[in-house]
């Protein structure tokens, strides 16, 4: 597992049965020091080369199972472990073009042991108000290659 939240391994196009590119995927790791239940995850936007994909357009794959943002919001039984990167899957006809792509993804987690005012202020679409290394940044960016 790589130190950066956005992993370089796992970034590729995905194809249908005929071999046509129908989207892309990438992996992220949890920068928090403990695992979380899916309902604790707050999703922001995925931005690739300036194009914004809202949370409703991004499927999370955890332990081999796919979850929509709506499903995750009420799922407090499925646990995302900090050593198991999640795969983000996006539908996009033709996939991403060969070459460099600027990828940005925003997400954060609720903590339950924080004072409520601090919890309420969390916004995955914006940089965190106070940065704690053990929770990581809300917004992560990486430039990566599609072959």
């Amino acid at each position: 597992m790589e130190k950066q939240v956005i992993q370089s391994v796992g970034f590729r196009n995905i194809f249908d049965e005929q071999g046509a590119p129908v989207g892309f995927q990438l992996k992220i790791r949890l920068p928090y020091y403990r695992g979380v239940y899916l309902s604790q995850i707050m999703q922001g936007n995925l931005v690739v080369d300036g194009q914004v994909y809202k949370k409703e357009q991004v499927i999370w794959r955890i332990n081999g199972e796919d979850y929509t943002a709506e499903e995750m919001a009420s799922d407090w039984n499925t646990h995302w472990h900090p050593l198991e990167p999640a795969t983000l899957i996006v539908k996009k006809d033709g996939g991403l073009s060969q070459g460099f792509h600027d990828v940005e993804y925003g997400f954060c987690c609720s903590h339950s042991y924080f004072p409520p005012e601090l919890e309420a202020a969390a916004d995955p679409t914006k940089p965190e108000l106070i940065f704690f290394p053990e929770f990581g940044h809300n917004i992560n960016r990486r430039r990566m290659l599609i072959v």
Partner: protein
Amino acid sequence: MYHYARKGPKRGVSLYSYSAEFGLTKNLEECFEDVHDMGAHGIEILANTHIENYPYPPAEWVDKWFALLEKYELEPIEYGHWVDSHVLKFRELTTEESAEMLCRDIRLAHRLGFKIMRTKMPVISASLDPVENWRDIIKSALPLAERLGMIMCPEIHNPTNLKSEMVQNYVDFIKETGTKSFGLNIDFSVFRTEFSEGEWRDPGFVPNVPEDIIPLLPYVPCCHAKYFNVDDSFQETTIPYKKILSILIENNWDGYLLSEYEGADKYDQDYEVGQTLRRQHIMMKNILGY
């Protein structure tokens, strides 16, 4: 299972200390070996972090867990976990749902050989008060905990004071229920007297004197041996360790001191928390004599 037979305060490590390295540059076995190097015999884990496929670890992982404890002469001392009743954004979990989550952790802690749990409940205020139904949640889990010989302990941490109403409420609860399955983990941050210039200090924090721990000791099965700065002559410059450990010895306290390093510098490039832990263990070994 390995057992370290010594009575009195014993040295251990919370694997939380390795949070910047675990999974990236160190695996579970490497953390165990590092603790073994220090001559420490107890460990604390965070359930959600250190247990593979938590909360349902595969049987092979559990076998490996016990093999590693044996190999590195370590006892499983404290199981860190959270009662995450704020896990949903649109409603709080019911007492029954929270208790169910808690009981699942009690069973897993027991399966892994633990007797003590650091039970973190969601907080509802800036002074870290627990959820209002905490008594009901704990009471629902007491029969199971008592049957398995498990003790659930909230951690008492800066800015909370040992003489605060929160701590008194916990002590009253233990007295009222007469249970041996609820106690306290005292984090030594409550004794911190020195802060660096410019360092954030909670305005409500009043440090305790070491003697303040004495009336609580019957309810304290283990402590978080918090440290901030152990200098090159192996002295902790911010917490009166010598006095605290002397009090524990004089009062015949028997339990583990679990090192827990929270400094944000552990996330710096090439930082090895094991080297900081070793400083602290030299300090404690020099005071304890073992």
